[in-house]
């Protein structure tokens, strides 16, 4: 079963993750930032959609000139208590104007989904051992918030 949550539903995931090196899978592919930087020309020229994965140490500004060519940025939560990707998400949405898919990967758990959504994430790869139906309930935990929503709001944001 899919573990990817988008638009308040579990959806099939067309994307494949590429390693730091080695052959690329066909179709839509997510590469780590270092590989994107090293193989930028080839990657942009390739068939299929392209996504880049940032680690919490990476500066989203490194993608500033390329966001228009990217369909997806994946931000990693090595542990759910590591909150750096929340700042990266807001910077990508608000400062750099990224409007593509912003995906949370790694230690992604139910009780943080709404926080992620409110920072601009619109896709969530739930950790493998967690019940996705249970997790979908998270988006209804609150009907109000004290902070303004992230702007510009990307299409399809929960």
């Amino acid at each position, binding site marked *: 079963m899919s573990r990817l949550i988008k638009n308040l539903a579990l959806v099939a995931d067309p994307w494949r993750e590429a390693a730091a090196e080695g052959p690329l899978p066909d179709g839509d592919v997510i590469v780590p930032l270092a590989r994107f930087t090293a193989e930028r020309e080839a990657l942009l020229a390739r068939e299929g959609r392209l996504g880049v994965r940032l680690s919490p140490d990476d500066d989203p500004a490194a993608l500033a000139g390329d966001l228009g060519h990217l369909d997806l940025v994946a931000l990693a939560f090595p542990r759910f208590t590591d*909150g750096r990707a*929340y700042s*990266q998400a807001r910077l990508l949405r608000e400062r750099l104007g990224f409007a593509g898919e912003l995906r949370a990967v790694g230690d992604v758990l139910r*009780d943080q989904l709404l926080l992620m959504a409110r*920072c601009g994430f619109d896709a969530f790869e739930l950790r493998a051992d967690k*019940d996705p139906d249970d997790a979908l309930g998270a988006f209804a935990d609150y009907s*109000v918030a*004290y*902070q*303004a929503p992230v702007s510009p709001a990307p299409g399809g944001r929960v």
Partner: protein
Amino acid sequence: MYRYDQLDRTFVAERVRQFRDQVARRLDGRLTEDEFKPLRLQNGLYLQLHAYMLRVAIPYGVLSSRQLRALAAIARTYDKGYGHYTTRQNIQFNWIRLDQAADVLAALAEVEMHAIQTSGNCVRNVTTDHLAGIAPDEIADPRPYCELLRQWSTLHPEFSFLPRKFKIAVTGAEADRAAIAVHDIGLRLVLDAAGAVGFEVLVGGGLGRTPILGSVIRRFLPASDLLGYVEAILRVYNRYGRRDNIYKARIKILVKALGAEAFGRAVEAEWQAMDRDGMAIDAGMLDRVATHFAPPAYAELADAAPERAQAMREPAFARWLARNVLPHRVPCYRAVMIALKGGGAVPGDATAETMERVADLAELFSFGEIRVTHTQNLVLGHVAAHDLAALWHALRVAGLANPVVGTVTDIIACPGLDYCALATARAIPIAQAIDAAFADVAELHDIGDLRINISGCINSCGHHHVGDIGILGVDKRGQEVYQLTLGGSSADEASLGTILGPSLPPDQVAGAVRRVVDVYMERREPGESFLALVRRLGVDAFKARVYGGLEAHAA
């Protein structure tokens, strides 16, 4: 005081519902303890030595009589009949059951209270001057800004998993009663040359293992830019604060590593790039919040000091006036402190009966409002001067007129090893021993202002670094021993105490304090404070007496 609007009510109700669900998922195993812990902490729930402890926020230290009665009811229903006021304008209940925690939160929500972000690695409840809106030396009331910060920080989606806890304190007065220099962010309301209101911004102060005073990164921040600027500080911290070592994760370590100037530049750059207009506090926003903190309807009173005549006749009343009654910005009113200290009391503890009695007296004498101080006392903030005698009698009957505020026995103490899972030593019995050694009220008054702060471990919840006399409990090969520091202060010329000498066993601490006080009494110039004397003489003058005395004693 602040009253909830529809958004606040909805939010707090949803928060209770969410936590109830999280507890249920913890109990049926869908959440592991590791996953649950940060969630319960952000709802104020700690696992202590003997039970769960719930830390409830008292925003800006202000309570209504109705709220205080609700706290009393919680103490009776869910705890063992008492609560403990902390150094951060919170109250802690020590004997809470996990399966009842959400019920307590629901009971709090009924009276517009909560435990949100009183713990955890997030922006903690904002603290301020307990005399806000009362003190004659106030430039502007800090509470509307505190409330705006509370709203901004509540479940802030970007800052709910910071490297470490984050504490903001605000002062609006000339005398800093909020200890802003020992907070992650300290804000001081100031006026610029044109009379506009703004903030001096300090960052990177804190106690604990690495005590350090905050550095000024901005002399004047227009008040309307407060939220944007604080958000910029938090973003720099969230991105670059250390996460590899919890002892190095506070913002003070980042500020120290970068240097305050470089840190300030990073904040300015972040702030400049931000949607500053979108974050600005407009006048309407501020006014809406400020109306909640409007002063009560003071009566026009003729005699400015009617208590004087009675004080002439009644020395006990005079002593109480001298220590427990403070001036008010309105001439015919006073602020009355109630010491939760002395007579063997556990510093900061109050029984349900005491809370109810104080709630009643607040209704009779102080517009139904109670304040909680970081020194673990209560305040009736708006007492008409001509009511002082009646209030004093009522407090005396209730055993709440101990005239010791600010003296040696008005001790700040954390719960220590009697409750706290992190403690290395007990704090409460040490406070009680000092209290017993200074039982003579006339002597306490003669000594005057002298702050003793006790922490049961290096986490420093008892703020020992900034006491005139600081006492830190440490564990030495399985024995509880105590390290004394002298000359700390959290006030305007904030300073950290200097270690006096080798640690002392528990039964020698009160005697050592006695000898330190003796030196002060013998050597002080007229009007010289303890802090001034320590700065003038250095700690060695005290050291000789304390440890010399001990040798003589042992011989």
